[in-house]
């Protein structure tokens, strides 16, 4: 309860400072709209359906691209971890391409696919795949071999060994790999939507883009707020439960430890 009060006080204060700053009249309201005008824009966009449509289009692209990226990246990451040769080749390739900001794929994608959904998808997949490979590769290399050894002495082998030992043992890196991938998919999709204008769907990035074209700062900020909120929500819904599980079981989760030092089971449960 105390935490909730502190958190809401913090964000209320942020909004109040913003509102006061815009009302002070030092900056043009065109460039620095008030909280109220942004809220009005969001309300209006919600009412006429453009906002939900944009969210739907964006999330659909994100999920499809992300899933393709993970489906390609996870096995390739495991492959990269399997030998020194694959690490030197596939691992190095992934590391190199991951340093390429995903927006750099946009010209490539537009030339190959034109102004289509395919271009959009391509950018998202390219943004996701490399980081998933890197995280998976790194994680798979850090599974303690003792787990498989212990399991084998107890008679576990083949399918049982893979599903009951290797899979759960790899959960920490699977989750971190998928989370990495998600963050990069989200970033690359926004880049793609801002730069690739297509008519088959009007996503959040395009909302942002047209806000700039129309000089509608309330729309620009409103779209940014929605993008931030979706990122936060996705993290909470998709990854936080897994991370809490890992933290409880392994007792080692850097993020959870930072947020909740000396976390007991009951407090973790409360947090959810």
């Amino acid at each position, binding site marked *: 309860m105390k935490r909730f009060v502190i958190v809401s006080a913090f964000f209320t204060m942020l909004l109040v400072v913003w509102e006061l700053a815009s009302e002070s009249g030092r900056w043009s309201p065109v460039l620095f709209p008030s909280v109220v005008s942004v809220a009005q824009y969001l309300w209006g966009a919600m009412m006429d359906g453009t906002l939900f449509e944009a969210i739907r289009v964006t999330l659909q692209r994100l999920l499809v691209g992300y899933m393709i990226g993970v489906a390609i990246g996870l096995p390739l990451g495991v492959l990269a971890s399997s030998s020194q040769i694959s690490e030197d080749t596939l691992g190095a390739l992934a590391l190199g391409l991951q340093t390429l900001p995903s927006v750099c794929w946009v010209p490539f994608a537009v030339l190959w696919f034109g102004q289509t959904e395919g271009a959009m998808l391509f950018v998202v997949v390219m943004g996701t795949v490399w980081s998933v490979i890197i995280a998976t590769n790194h994680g798979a290399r850090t599974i*303690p071999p*003792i*787990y498989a*050894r*212990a*399991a*084998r*002495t*107890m*008679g*576990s082998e083949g399918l*049982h060994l893979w599903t*009951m*030992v290797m899979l*759960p*043992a790899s*959960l920490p890196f699977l989750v971190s790999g998928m989370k990495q991938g998600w963050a990069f998919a989200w970033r690359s999709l926004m880049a793609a939507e801002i730069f690739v204008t297509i008519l088959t769907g009007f996503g959040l990035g395009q909302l942002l883009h047209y806000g700039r074209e129309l000089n509608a700062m309330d729309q620009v900020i409103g779209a940014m707020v929605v993008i931030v909120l979706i990122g936060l929500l996705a993290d909470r819904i998709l990854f936080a439960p897994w991370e809490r599980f890992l933290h*409880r*079981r*392994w*007792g*080692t989760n850097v993020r959870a430890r930072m947020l909740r030092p000396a976390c007991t089971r009951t407090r973790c449960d409360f947090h959810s």
Partner: protein
Amino acid sequence: MLDQVHDYDDSKSLTVTAATSKLVVEGVSKWFRTPRATVHALDNVSMQVSDGEVVCVVGPSGCGKSTLLDIIAGLTKPDAGRVLADGHPVTGPGRQRLVVFQEPSLFPWLDVFGNVMFGLGLCPELSSVERREIAHRYLALVGLEKFERAHVHELSGGMKQRVALARALAPDPQVLLMDEPFGALDAMTREHLYDDIQRIWSDSCKTIVFVTHNMREAACLVDRVLLMSKAPGKIIQGFDIPLPRPRSIYDVELVSHAGRIADSLRGTVGGGVPE
């Protein structure tokens, strides 16, 4: 690979007793090849363990005693020689020879009870009710019945090794292999565990092969100590420890036994001070 075996045919006593021994190690040698060098880890190691006997292999660090245990467990293949369990050659790991490892080997994704159930789940002859009952019994035996639902990371080092012991004992293996199970524990926890281990072992009547570099630990726990030389490891001497049980680590006679073993080890490693 096999043609090296006949080098050791002179160990006639081995073949005679092989039939009555629970565990026979015959002329086992092992080399580890790295890109830079080949390390000769074990050199023609032979030993036998009778049913219900508790045997300890001691030796200086890096003498290959853990490798020997791995080979007995079937986790590592020897380059020469072979291991017989109940007269049958060991070709791979199996649940008749369970291992308590030095490093923490409990599965963090399972709770304490789940860890003990893991091995039991691979015993098709047991019903699920029997499995649960056995898991409860062994956790009570190691004194952790109150921690069945605890997560692994919540346990202390000593508690983790107790769970590992319960996990290894629960499927009722023929042979229990322990690889420096107390190596990572502090002295006080270790001494406490010696008492518990002696009680549990005498209840279970298992054949046990135990590896350590601690002479007093060896003298306290086992019937017979086999001394290994430094790498390449070979067994150079055997000591019987005919002391009544339960033994105390501070017992004068026990300390003198430990001293005898340490002295011969010093003779082999050339003045080094073993622990």
